[in-house]
């Protein structure tokens, strides 16, 4: 681990501005991948009133208490943390579905994260869409930020806005994940390329996740896609997790061939 601050633990907020780009999917899969690598990981759902993380992790039936109850003192943090059913080192702090974003403050989130730092290597914060109170709550405690975007102009504009706000909030470590890219469409000139996005957003790339219909299937089942070893998205999320852990993992040159599978095929036909 390469982090010096706060006894080696890192608080990472995953944000995007626009909704539906894959923030929660990213949080779920990257945190599972890190937990599988042996790190102690906590995920904190701050999309209060519109929670989804519990569903994607398949833990919806195990939720007893939520983050607002912890903050209001109805239960302890330990009671509210839900242990994952697959990975021993992964815990989730659920959002409250019947409350809203104004019920907690940035200071409270910060205090909660500070309490969690001693028990976890990584704490991921699933940020709600938008730039209002929920966003301010989510970024208050974080050391680093990951901005998720899709290769389309509306998501890129929102990402640019968010990066600007993170820079204003003195974030030094902001990295980009490009989610749901389709190289066949990039090649035919119908989708923004990785280069287009990086040129426009001017931040460091953390990973590129190809469009993969298996993601919908696994989301509906409440199983992280990284458990599906054959999926292109799973490999990408795994690589992202390894980069977060400090490993050097090349970002594959997707553009060489139109799809992931044809790359695999050429690999074997050599």
């Amino acid at each position, binding site marked *: 681990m390469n982090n010096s601050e706060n006894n080696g633990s890192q608080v990472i907020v995953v944000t995007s501005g626009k909704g539906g780009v894959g923030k929660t999917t990213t949080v779920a899969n990257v945190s599972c991948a890190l937990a599988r690598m042996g790190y102690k990981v906590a995920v904190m759902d701050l999309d209060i009133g519109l929670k989804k993380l519990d569903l994607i992790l398949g833990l919806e039936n195990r939720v007893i208490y939520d983050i607002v109850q912890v903050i209001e003192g109805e239960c302890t943090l330990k009671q509210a943390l839900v242990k994952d059913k697959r990975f021993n080192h992964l815990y989730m702090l659920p959002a409250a579905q019947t409350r809203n974003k104004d019920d907690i403050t940035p200071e409270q989130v910060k205090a909660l994260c500070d309490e969690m730092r001693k028990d976890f290597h990584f704490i991921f914060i699933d940020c709600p869409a938008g730039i209002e109170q929920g966003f301010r709550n989510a970024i208050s405690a974080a050391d680093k930020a990951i901005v998720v975007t899709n290769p389309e102009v509306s998501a890129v504009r929102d990402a*640019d*806005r968010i990066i*600007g*706000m993170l*820079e204003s909030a003195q974030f030094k470590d902001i990295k980009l994940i490009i989610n749901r890219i389709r190289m066949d469409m990039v090649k035919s000139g119908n989708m923004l390329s990785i280069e287009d996005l990086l040129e*426009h957003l*001017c931040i460091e790339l953390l990973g590129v996740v190809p469009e993969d219909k298996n993601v919908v299937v696994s989301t509906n089942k409440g199983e992280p896609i990284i458990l599906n070893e054959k999926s292109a998205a799973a490999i990408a999320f795994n690589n992202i997790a390894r980069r977060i852990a400090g490993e050097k993992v090349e970002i594959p040159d997707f553009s060489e061939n139109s799809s992931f599978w044809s790359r695999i095929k050429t690999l074997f036909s050599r």
Partner: protein
Amino acid sequence: MISIKGINGNLVFNFLPGNFEDYIRFLTQKFSSNPRLFAGSKVVFRGEGLNFLSHEEIAALQKLCLDYGMVLNNNPSSLEKGAGQDVIIYRNIRSGQKIFSEGSVIVWGNVHESAEIIAARDIIILGKLEGIVHAGFYGDKNSIVFALQMAPGQIRIADKFSRAPADYTPKDYPEIAYLEEDTICIKRYVPQENLARLNS
């Protein structure tokens, strides 16, 4: 009748000889046609036309300005060149960020799509300009916009605006935008001729 000019963040109303009723009618029509341009501006009255007006008439003209949200500037020394504070920025301006200056703005970086820069005088972008810029915000028609790569959503200079044609492809050389006979023109930046124009 009355010429309106932006000088260092002030709107200077230069009264040419005329009569009070015409002044009122002219200003009311000007203000109501573009209230946003005038609201909040600092106003200075000037010109020999004022010599023929009574105190009450001047007060009435001033009240008209106040009614449209303008501020009277009783300190005309700020008309001197360079009085407005220039702003220099060493980063990219991102979507949703807004820069305002009573003088000129210089950006060492790119101006992204849907970012805004508003300046009383010139706007100089040492990078790619994709956002919205408004030079000569108070009406200074000599203001210019310069960018190493010009690809703005919109350019406004004084009270004129123009947007890029739909099939526009950015050039890979620096360009300058300026007003010529109330039309915004963009052309390749050539130091000699542009400096001559700026000094005029």
